[in-house]
């Protein structure tokens, strides 16, 4: 088996016929379009159908014809009963002839779907990601993606590991392991401070250093069995843990153990800490300017594009002081996270909140997995942010190689 990357789809395809809404529409003269759009969007806005265009233009027999959606259908047989009084007034005033039509219930997620939808009634389409990134990743990214996953696997001792990476530089932003159980506070890999600017994912071929790593126990014993020490697989297992002896708390604000400190949650916290340390200027919101306006407050630049052209441009624009701020990410926008195990619903939702661009995991979580194992959270349309999810298949030969390494120690 080779290293492989497969996208985990957010939803299992549903037919377009199952996902339509009945509406009442009418043909109108083009000179009335603006007036009617204004009036109808006031008295009968199409809530939850923002992707649907109010007006359809069709060319029939060489003549351009406009139709407008009057309102949602209530399901009664005859058209007249389906129309609210306010809308009926418009129908009477302009002598319209209502007819029934269907529109798609949800925004299109692909160009193909959008083209299908427009056959019913035109909708607007906003591609979720850059068009040049087919399938959510570029072919030339694969070696770096696999290296990042190797880094995560090598960090994994007991339980899950999370590594946050800026894909534009393959720089590691933060990393963490599960901290649900009592842990040794000197443990490596959870410390933000050890993350150096030159810490990239490109060095993960076995070296002398790697030989010193404690290797992941779950690979050594039964590679295909579930590991109950992984927080996301066994989130309710914390109550069964026994603290052998209560160690003194590591310090103010720290926890000896914490049922919710799954690897992804800790990694996010470490990334936030890094953000506060690297870009401290905007921690405190003090006063608005004389106009009572905070518009020029140092807000982070929205970071969706990660190509170098953007950086050069921003460097040119900013004299000096703004440079840091323009490179400051908004949460983890544009960043990737690598997890050895598929996350639970808590962690998967945390990754939505923190605006990750892509989530990679190596091993599925059939008990509580939120990204394919049990649920498909990333396909939930109502969420205010969506990321792509990929599974990295790790070759057994690689894992065996790790085992051999441990025997040599």
């Amino acid at each position, binding site marked *: 088996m080779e290293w492989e990357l497969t996208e985990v789809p957010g939803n299992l395809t549903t037919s377009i016929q199952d996902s339509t809404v009945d509406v009442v529409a009418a043909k109108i003269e083009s000179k009335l379009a603006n007036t009617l759009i204004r009036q109808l969007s006031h008295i009968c806005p199409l809530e939850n159908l923002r992707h649907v265009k109010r007006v359809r233009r069709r060319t029939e027999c060489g003549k351009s014809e406009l139709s407008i959606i009057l309102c949602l259908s209530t399901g009664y047989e005859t058209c007249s009963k389906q129309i609210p009084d306010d809308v009926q007034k418009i129908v009477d005033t302009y002598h319209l002839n209502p007819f029934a039509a269907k529109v798609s219930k949800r925004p299109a997620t692909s160009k193909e779907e959008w083209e299908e939808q427009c056959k019913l009634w035109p909708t607007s389409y906003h591609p979720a990601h850059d068009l040049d990134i087919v399938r959510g990743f570029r072919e030339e990214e694969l070696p770096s993606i696999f290296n990042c996953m190797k880094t995560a696997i090598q960090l994994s001792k007991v339980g899950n590991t999370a590594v946050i990476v800026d894909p534009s530089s393959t720089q590691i932003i933060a990393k963490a392991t599960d901290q649900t159980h009592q842990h040794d506070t000197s443990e490596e890999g959870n410390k933000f401070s050890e993350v150096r600017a030159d810490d990239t994912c490109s060095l993960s071929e076995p070296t002398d250093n790697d030989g010193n790593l404690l290797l992941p126990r779950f690979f050594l014993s039964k590679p295909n069995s579930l590991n109950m020490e992984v927080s996301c697989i066994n989130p*309710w297992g*914390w*109550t069964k843990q026994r603290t052998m002896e209560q160690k003194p708390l590591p310090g103010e604000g720290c926890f000896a153990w914490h049922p919710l400190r799954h690897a992804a949650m800790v990694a996010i916290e470490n990334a936030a800490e890094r953000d506060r340390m690297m870009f401290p200027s905007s921690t405190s919101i003090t006063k*608005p300017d004389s106009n009572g306006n*905070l518009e020029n407050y140092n*807000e982070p630049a929205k970071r969706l594009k990660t190509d170098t052209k953007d950086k050069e441009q921003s460097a040119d624009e900013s004299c000096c002081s703004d440079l840091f701020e323009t490179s400051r990410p908004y949460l983890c926008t544009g960043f990737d996270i690598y997890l050895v195990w598929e996350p639970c619903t*808590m962690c998967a939702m945390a990754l939505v*909140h923190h605006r990750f661009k892509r989530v990679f995991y190596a091993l599925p979580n059939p008990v509580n997995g939120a990204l394919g194992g049990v649920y498909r959270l990333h396909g939930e349309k*109502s969420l205010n942010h969506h990321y792509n999810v990929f599974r990295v298949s790790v070759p057994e030969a690689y894992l065996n190689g790790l085992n051999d390494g441990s025997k040599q120690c």
Partner: protein
Amino acid sequence: MAAAAAFMERALEQAKFALDNLEVPVGCVIVEDGKVISSGSNRTNATRNATRHAEMEAIDVLLREWQKMGLDQAQVAEKFAGCDLYVTCEPCIMCATALSILGIREVYFGCANDKFGGCGSIMSLHQGSTSSDDLSGSQPPRPKGFKCTGGIMAEEAVALFRCFYEQGNPNAPRPHRPVRIPQQ
């Protein structure tokens, strides 16, 4: 219900505190034996950590306190099983899972969260697992459910959100609507 309203008032105070600090206005209190033992408000902007929801803040106060008292995992679990949460907005999918993991007894919320609510709106994590725990211990513990009641002082909670979105979120990425501080 009068008691529930009184605790929700306290949660709303927390939400107002968040609003005053230009945070998304959500607040909560945790109640044990009819007493508020912890409270929290959203701190996602100040911490730059989008997971620092009100519930997470209030939970951490208790975990810190109980660990300081020397309670072990089983004792902490027992404590949470006697606690109720009052929160101004339906817990999101992340927080609902967290509350289930901790095994909280009951949750009361204000307005529903139709974007990412985890207690009925988008997912129903409060329902837990239908099968009971396998006593032999060979299976992992199953998801715990909790009783959940929504719609308590929902208008007040929504009014705070409206204030927040009118003034604008200073931490939202560009382009965003300008932030305006009301002239008083």
